[in-house]
């Protein structure tokens, strides 16, 4: 389990002739050990950019990113890949990789240049596939799977990286309700520190310990789902009217869109 802390992070895209356009401004965010943190916000608000900074893909212009107290940018990409795993909406091209090949890629950060795969690596891969319920798919071509199955294969790849922190960019896209719930329950059960972006506010409310709301590149609210998800905030940030009450069976809030 790891802790991630982000302080004063800003990031801009360079614009040819003219002032840089700031897409992230003064972001502060903390993921504590074993905590499930959600990130919500409208399209284009900077969710994906922020996650990219957190897994060391984009270099922020200002600010600090620390994983377990160590400055992420003082360490190598390999170092952070041994500690942070990422599940993205980016699927391998149709080049004929099998499910097992895709999952085994997750061992890469733990391997040297000419290291062969050991029986231990094979065990990690088999365990991860069993974990996501796809053991029987190991030899199948990745391209032939459904969207939901692909998503679960990518989760298995993240698990064989043996990370302390898991970052997910809209993990429930492509999934039907049953797999959405299964995946999120599953993630909770891992006991890892998790930072995930969500489109579905009710899923975020149900599974996150804390939620950050991002709008136009700035964090505008943070706190438990009950603190953050209010009708006023939703209207202010997303520009839609919603009714927020308590979930009939649980303590967390329920959002109903007023259509």
């Amino acid at each position, binding site marked *: 389990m790891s802790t991630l802390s982000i302080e004063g992070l800003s990031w801009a895209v360079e614009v040819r002739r003219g002032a840089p356009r700031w897409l992230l401004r003064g972001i502060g965010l903390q993921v504590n050990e074993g905590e499930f943190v959600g990130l919500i916000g409208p399209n284009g608000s900077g969710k994906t950019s922020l996650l990219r900074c957190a897994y060391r893909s984009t270099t922020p212009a200002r600010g600090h990113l620390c994983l377990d107290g160590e400055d992420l940018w003082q360490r190598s*990409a390999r170092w952070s890949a*041994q500690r942070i795993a990422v599940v*993205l909406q*980016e699927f391998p*091209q149709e*080049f004929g990789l099998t499910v097992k090949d*895709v999952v085994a*890629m997750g061992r890469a950060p733990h391997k040297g240049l*000419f290291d062969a795969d050991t029986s231990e690596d094979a065990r990690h891969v088999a365990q991860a596939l069993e974990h996501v319920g796809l053991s029987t798919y190991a030899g199948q071509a990745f391209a032939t799977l459904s969207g939901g199955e692909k998503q679960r294969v990518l989760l298995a790849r993240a698990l064989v990286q043996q990370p302390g922190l898991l970052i997910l960019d809209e993990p429930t896209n492509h999934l039907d309700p049953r797999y959405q719930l299964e995946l999120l329950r599953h993630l909770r059960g891992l006991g890892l520190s998790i930072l995930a972006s969500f489109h579905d506010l009710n899923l975020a409310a149900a599974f996150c310990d804390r939620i950050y709301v991002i709008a136009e590149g700035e964090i505008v609210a943070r706190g438990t789902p009950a603190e953050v998800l209010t009708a006023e905030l939703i209207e202010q940030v997303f520009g839609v009217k919603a009714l927020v009450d308590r979930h009939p069976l649980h303590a967390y809030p329920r959002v109903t869109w007023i259509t």
Partner: protein
Amino acid sequence: MPIRGRLGIRLLLAGLVCVLVLSCISALAFGPAVIPQSYVWSIVGKHLGFAMPEDWSRSQEHIVWLIRAPRVVLGALVGAGLAMVGVALQAVTRNPLADPHLLGVSSGAAFGAVLVVLYLGEFAGVFSLPLAAFLGALGSMLLVLAVARRRGQLESDRLLLAGVAVSFVLMAMVNLLLFTGDHHAAASVVFWMLGGLGGARWDVLWLPGICVVAGLFALLAMARGLNALMSGEQTAVSLGFNGKGLRLQAFICTSLLTGVLVSLSGAIGFVGLMVPHVARALVGAEHRRLIPVAALLGALFLVWVDVAARTLIAPEDLPIGIATAALGGLFFLVMLRR
């Protein structure tokens, strides 16, 4: 069904190596002068240090060992090298149509060759043409990289476009020089551009030999990174690879290897484009399996195509580029129809 188990791959590799060695030796028998297989094996045996009954003529030994053998070895090296380069470029550009000539290397080499043959003459003895071709390849590669780089970024789309554009400009200049130059000299350049292994000699083989082996190890060291890059830039980063650095390494490594091979054999098409696809159908896209298998298949393919090039219109040599394109294309069409 692709072969993927560890044992299956080892058997396949061992089998391909055996078939390649057998092919290289039996290929020595073919050519304008037909020499019996038994002589060929004995001559090879003699030069490998075995005591053999010498019942062949001196000219037969000369043909087999000094003319055909280096040619066969060069063919195997060029085939292996171009196939590996194709595999790597298809992965880093995420484009299944990428091939070794895409980045302008071959047209640069042709430009260098034209300058030497038509204007400079033999400034460095027998090495003039290969040397000039290699310098041309290097120059065009650097030009493509310089054009494609923007604000420190190297994107594959821009690189492909830059490669194609530089190729067209260089080929235009080559064609202009050929058109306005001495037609007799131009014919020899055209022959070189169509590809041929006829220039092979034992004393130049060390260079492509070292380059192909070094290239094999360099690409195998990048194999996990190539897998990740094939899945996407963000995935590569999340698995701890520096996507941009890795791509640049792969481009430089493949361009240098292509430059060396093209300078010796001319621009041989098709091998680098199609052999990777055949290899993927055999063992899947995982690069630690794919690279060695593609290299062996490429070598095997070129050795036999060169046999065809030597015999089809004997005693004339058919430019091997024509043979690879024609035979390879037909083979691939049959594969597509099945």
